[in-house]
């Protein structure tokens, strides 16, 4: 029993970082209708910028982190403005290829600048300390990630519910034409959505970086975040978060009780089963296309 609880706790802990990636993906999917394969690298570059600010320019960790988040915002906006928006008559596959191209460029830039050596990001909290409750443990870093993820979800919720811009975003996602007619600059809204998504992703990246940093560090969280987002329904923010936690917990239970070999891929099998029952994920409304 204690093992079970421990696995669930660890699963939720790892699910938090997946959840942040999933949130970023869903934001962009709602705005531009593309599964965003550059999500991981949009976080990777700012994380390495933070590293550079600390080591090359001697800024403190907090300033560097804020710098990274600010940079992520700009980067996201820039990618939408300079590249994604420029696609003519985009279809979903074309856009996927564009994001894959962007992913390669950003990954190439980071690897070119920093080489392949592994590093770690300085962080005020040790990555290896933990809180013990009886026989259960949760590492401090995981706890921080959990709270940060929750905080971001609340902020996003409030933002979409109460801020003018958030409402405009929702409007744009629901019906771009109507939104434009109502005087919303939908292009600008999309651009800022990309920025927000990159920032959310970067938070996740910054929380992963104190354990290990290398150019490919965001791949696995990105794929799992994508998986989580799909379980949740790809268009629902709470769904994405819930889906990411499901992925995390299922992985841990499966790894613990059944087979470690398949732990890394079990999430995808779960998805297929979930999707066979609910083809648009758990939380999204299933739209039936009309002829």
């Amino acid at each position: 029993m204690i093992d079970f609880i421990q696995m669930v706790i660890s699963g939720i802990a790892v699910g938090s970082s997946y959840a942040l990636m999933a949130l970023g993906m869903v934001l962009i999917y709602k705005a531009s209708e593309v599964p965003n394969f550059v999500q991981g690298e949009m976080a990777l570059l700012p994380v390495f910028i933070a590293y550079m600010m600390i080591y090359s320019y001697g800024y403190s960790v907090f300033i560097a982190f804020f710098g990274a988040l600010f940079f992520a915002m700009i980067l996201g906006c820039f990618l939408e403005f300079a590249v994604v928006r420029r696609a003519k008559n985009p279809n979903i596959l074309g856009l996927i290829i564009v994001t894959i191209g962007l992913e390669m460029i950003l990954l190439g830039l980071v690897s070119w600048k920093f080489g392949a050596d592994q590093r770690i990001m300085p962080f005020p909290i040790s990555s290896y300390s933990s809180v013990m409750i009886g026989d259960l443990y949760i590492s401090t870093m995981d706890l921080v990630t959990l709270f940060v993820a929750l905080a971001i979800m609340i902020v996003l919720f409030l933002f979409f519910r109460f801020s003018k811009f958030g409402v405009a975003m929702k409007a744009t996602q629901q019906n771009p034409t109507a939104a434009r007619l109502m005087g919303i600059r939908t292009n600008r809204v999309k651009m800022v959505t990309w920025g927000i998504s990159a920032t959310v992703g970067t938070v996740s990246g910054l929380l992963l970086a104190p354990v290990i940093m290398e150019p490919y560090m965001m791949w696995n969280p990105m794929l799992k975040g994508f998986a989580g987002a799909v379980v949740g329904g790809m268009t629902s923010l709470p769904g994405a978060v819930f889906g990411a936690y499901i992925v995390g917990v299922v992985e841990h239970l499966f790894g613990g009780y059944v087979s470690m070999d398949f732990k890394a891929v079990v999430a995808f099998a779960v998805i297929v089963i979930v999707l066979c029952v609910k083809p648009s994920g758990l939380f999204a409304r299933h739209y039936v296309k009309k002829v």
Partner: protein
Amino acid sequence: MKKTLFAVLFGALVVFGMLSTGYCEIGVTDTEIHIGQWSPQSGPAAAWGAVARGTDAYFKWINANGGIHGRKLVHHYFDDGYNPARTIAGVKQLQEQRGMFAWVGGVGTAPGLAVKEYLMQKKIPWIGPAAGSWHWVTPPQKYLFNVYPLYLGDAQLLVEHAAKKMGKKSIAVVYQEDDYGEQGLAGTKHMLEKYNMELAAAVPVAMGDSDMRPHAMRLSRSNADAVLLFISPVAASRIIGIGKAMNYAPQWMSSSTCGDCPLMIDITQGLYEGVITSSFGMLETGEKVGDLQHINDPKHKLVAEYKKDVYGKFAARDERWGYTFVVGIGLAEPLVEAIKRAGRDLTRERLVEELEKMENFRGVLGRITYGPLDPNNPLTRIGQQELFLHQCTADGGSRILTNWIETEYIPMGH
């Protein structure tokens, strides 16, 4: 018009004549010896790229000291991104269009096996593939000389040390899901059978998996008091970190792949202190290393020299003096030595002869011995089987625990 044509033809003849004077062996001219190598400089395996850069700096250093018998070594290395299709492309292009005398190093089992048959059919010597795999010596090939010790050896030494010297009662293995990890697992099982011990747990780590919590948990539930790691440095650092967070502190032991103490101490924030790793080459010099008699080992001076001259003068500014870099030098040493011994009269057959005569050659790695080809005896091509154990210290140095130990070749595979 006719005159120009003649001039061109004559010029071409002269050039052709000059090219064909002197040496008729491919890749060897009066002034140059062309050596090829591949390694991933980009992509997920790029950390292994330092092997080729180490060889490159080493060759440059040799050239700066006058070359070998009046010839310079020309090193052609290319990036294959650990993709065998690209390895084949690069090898064929260099071999057929530039003409390589021999190949050295070459990272990875799959890329190496993709070109093995090609090189062997063309009778091109290939020295020191940078991966410890039994594929290189089963069966032994006339032109393929292994240098990198098999991971079976790492497993032997580590299990022996844990079970005999440290008296550990239960041993677990964490292994990467590839050739390297499987070998480590097989070697460990083999040794445990010998000591009548049970394997406490065997935990596989998928390539590219970034979440090691379940793995660490399974280890801690197995109550193993020694855990052998046959994984990548990144995975090792994660798993040890999570072990720390859950207050699980067995004796961590690792193969030479995670034996780069300065790097490992750095990326684990010091948690790697006390971890015992096997190693087949020294990295540091001076007081940071060892308190055993090995510090007076003459080859230790060689490491210092390499660090000062090869690394200091010929490596890129952003290069790190790390284990992979040193391995790059070490893999090329037998080749250079054999070229030296072959003398001015260099042909591939001469090179192979000299390599076959090589006995107890000591470079920066362990002793290297080959013998005349015997298709049933892998030892004639296995080269180095010596390893030693060291323990990382908090300052990124290491304490040497054992002398060089000759490991036994366990015939395995399929």
